[in-house]
């Protein structure tokens, strides 16, 4: 099985240096693209591969790029940004990739930037990823030294500057338009769309934001072609996926597997199944802002459509398991506490609604709940749905809650009736 994203990663060791990376076939794709492909060719290759964004929404990457105005009349200044904010609870795949093979990311950035003719790129890295920052800095410096970055890359007329920006910590910075504001040195509140960043992004210029994992797929796609990419997958969505499992499993971790690997394989084989004495009660398949699935969903394939059909979202593809020793109310309360704290405070439903939800869940968890709270919570889940709030944070925040209310209603009722948490 091919692992284009993680093949260079040697756990517990330093990542490949640039020279080693080149020896492993690195930067051949870039050479190929710059010498024999037009920006449009690169876009088309990515489009043909069917690569869908790994940042959570699964938007087709090639299509996203194609919205960037190219040609004479297009604005000269354009930007490419890597979204390495990764702050969604349960998600740690980008950290492993960044720490493991920073060169692959840098090469991907150059290819992507070339495809949209950006002359400046940024990596927006979350706070606290200090090891990743160190390794990225080195990879960038080495790429500059070898003229993979800078002026006249590889003797062509293409120039690109790449900068690493480290954030000071806010989940909302991961939302691409908030990220753009953050990068401008402003408060990271999201922007309304339209206009989409591809038309008006950083400083009002065309901008593409892609997730770390998405970007890391570019070089393998250019090197090996669309058909190869599709063949990696076990589903309609091409490629591999870095899946993760955390919670009370024997071997929490992340693995690069064919797209469409089932939850069962992930949890039972890769993660070694539940720890002794714990049973599986639920799964949040794709990071904290996705709906809960049940053990009966274990055979769902982890690809965009299949997870959607099961009533949740692939999201980031990093699953969190809920075990039978953990209070599901406490579990959702903890999630909503996160979302309340991380709301940017711009729009009313999210700012006020999540706070109210959090307070109510806290009350239920501590035995002060009332039966009417359940209707109130269900109502809030509807009210905080897509379109009602300014960005996707709040709709994501209520996904786990709405499904918990559905699947674990009994547990909520026991808290309220018994006036205490049965797990305590």
């Amino acid at each position, binding site marked *: 099985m091919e692992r284009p994203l993680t093949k260079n990663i040697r756990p517990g060791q330093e990542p490949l240096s640039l020279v080693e990376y080149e020896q492993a076939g690195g930067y051949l794709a870039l050479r190929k693209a710059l010498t024999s492909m037009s920006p449009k060719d690169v876009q088309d290759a990515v489009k043909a591969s069917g690569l869908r964004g790994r940042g959570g929404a699964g938007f087709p990457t090639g299509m996203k790029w194609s919205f960037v105005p190219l040609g004479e009349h297009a604005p000269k200044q354009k930007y490419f940004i890597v979204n390495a904010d990764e702050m969604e609870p349960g998600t*740690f795949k980008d950290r492993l990739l960044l720490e493991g093979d920073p060169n692959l990311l840098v090469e991907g950035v150059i290819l992507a930037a070339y495809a949209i003719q950006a002359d400046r790129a940024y990596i927006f890295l979350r706070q606290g990823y200090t090891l990743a920052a160190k390794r990225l800095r080195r990879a960038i410096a080495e790429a500059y030294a070898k003229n993979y970055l800078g002026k006249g890359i590889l003797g062509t007329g293409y120039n690109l500057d790449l900068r690493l920006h480290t954030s000071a*910590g806010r989940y909302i910075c991961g939302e691409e338009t908030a990220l753009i504001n*953050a990068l401008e040195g402003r*408060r990271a509140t999201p922007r309304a769309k339209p206009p989409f960043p591809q038309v008006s992004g950083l400083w009002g210029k065309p901008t593409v934001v892609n997730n770390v994992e998405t970007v890391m797929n570019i070089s393998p796609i250019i090197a090996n072609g669309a058909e190869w990419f599709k063949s990696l997958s076990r589903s309609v969505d091409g490629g591999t996926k870095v899946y993760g499992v955390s*919670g009370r499993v024997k071997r929490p971790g992340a693995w690069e597997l064919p797209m469409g690997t089932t939850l069962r394989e992930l949890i039972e084989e890769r993660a070694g199944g539940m720890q002794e004495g714990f049973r599986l009660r639920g799964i949040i398949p794709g990071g*904290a802002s996705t709906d809960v699935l049940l053990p009966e969903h274990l055979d769902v394939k982890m690809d965009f459509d299949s997870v959607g059909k099961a009533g949740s979202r692939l999201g980031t593809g990093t699953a*969190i398991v809920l075990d039978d020793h*953990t209070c599901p109310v406490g579990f959702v309360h903890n999630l909503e506490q996160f979302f309340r704290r991380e709301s940017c405070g711009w729009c009313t439903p999210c700012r006020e609604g999540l706070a109210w939800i959090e307070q109510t869940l806290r009350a239920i968890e501590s035995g002060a709940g009332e039966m009417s709270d359940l209707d109130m919570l269900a109502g809030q889940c509807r009210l905080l749905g897509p379109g009602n709030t300014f960005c996707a944070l709040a709709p994501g925040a209520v996904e786990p809650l709405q499904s918990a209310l559905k699947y674990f209603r009994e547990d909520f009722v026991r808290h309220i009736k018994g006036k205490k948490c049965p797990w305590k």
Partner: protein
Amino acid sequence: MLTDEEKSEIAEELAQAERREQACVEALLAVQKRRGWVSDENLAEIALLLGMTPAELDAVATFYSFVFRKPVGRHVITLCDSMVCWSLGLNPLYEHLKARMGITYGETTKDNRFTLLPASCMGACDRAPVMMIDNDLYGPVEPGAIEGILRKYT
């Protein structure tokens, strides 16, 4: 007063920035790196260097979790309180730290050695429960191992 070193680091960030205020988070962190936090006085000075007003800079500074606008101890311990860590033993860890140091979240020990803060998911759920001291990540952390870890920070 900012030191020359701080000023020159800010100047370096400014040199790379497309617009001056773009460097504001970096500038704040450059100062915080050395002092642990950003005082009002420092904030005003940084703002001046960036062509911003203190209000403008503080609007950004207070938005982020990891720009400290209040004094902290010599070392900052952050506990991830998001879901995976919570479900895998955050509470015992927190209880232990509370008892050991006599402080709760947001407080600093009397000897000014440690400040304890909660933090949102640190992206290390595979190692839950995790704890960060300054820039060092620890996980999974057993309460029994805390003593040994703390000893490294004086």
